[in-house]
């Protein structure tokens, strides 16, 4: 079990290797990446910033809750902060478990809780030179016309 906020490129294969064990029947990897188009706007990069100590604490809580709920210690999560280019990974979640359904359920639980709780913000850079903090609580089309 490991959870970290880091400011360097993520290496999905090494996280997968970290959770794999002969007791596992299944391992899953989730990789979140910077997408080139978001809500119709062309994205060229993203700055991720975090409230560091709280983000570390929340991420550790999410992983501990996943362990309790799904019954595996084999969960590793890294969230990257700083400036990311198109296609670079912002988060990697690796889980392994004796049973495949639990591995997949734990993967989904972790990414949904991360999105909901981690005090991390992203500012998208658009092709037209503007930058904007992403606010998932705003309705997409309202955001466009504001």
């Amino acid at each position, binding site marked *: 079990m490991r959870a970290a906020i880091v400011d360097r490129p993520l290496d999905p294969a090494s996280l997968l290797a970290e959770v794999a064990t002969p007791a596992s029947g299944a391992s899953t990897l989730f990789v979140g990446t910077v997408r080139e188009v978001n809500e119709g706007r062309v994205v060229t990069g993203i700055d991720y910033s975090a409230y560091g100590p709280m983000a570390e604490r929340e991420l550790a809580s999410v992983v501990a809750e996943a362990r309790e709920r799904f019954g595996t210690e084999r969960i590793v999560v890294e969230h990257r902060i700083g400036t990311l280019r198109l296609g670079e990974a912002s988060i990697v979640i690796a889980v392994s478990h004796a049973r495949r359904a639990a591995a997949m359920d734990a993967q989904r639980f972790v990414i949904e809780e991360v999105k909901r709780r981690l005090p991390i913000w992203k500012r998208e850079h658009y092709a037209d030179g503007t930058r904007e*903090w992403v606010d998932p609580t705003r309705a997409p089309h309202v955001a466009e016309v504001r």
Partner: protein
Amino acid sequence: MVANVLLFASWADALGPSVRLELPEGATVRHLLDAMTARAVGKSLPKPLVAVNHKYARADLHLRHGDEIAIIPPVAGG
């Protein structure tokens, strides 16, 4: 009491990385939010949550001297 409030993202862009607020003794998170909203008038900032000592705090939590207080705009991690 004097609270030093940490700000992030759009709130930090608008008001700086932290603000000092004078709050009555026994003030709650709701009082803090009201004071911060007053500071943000006219800036069209998103409605935030408040964290106290690295935990999301309910509106009725009483603030204490020495608490680490932060304004948490809508998060977008992952």
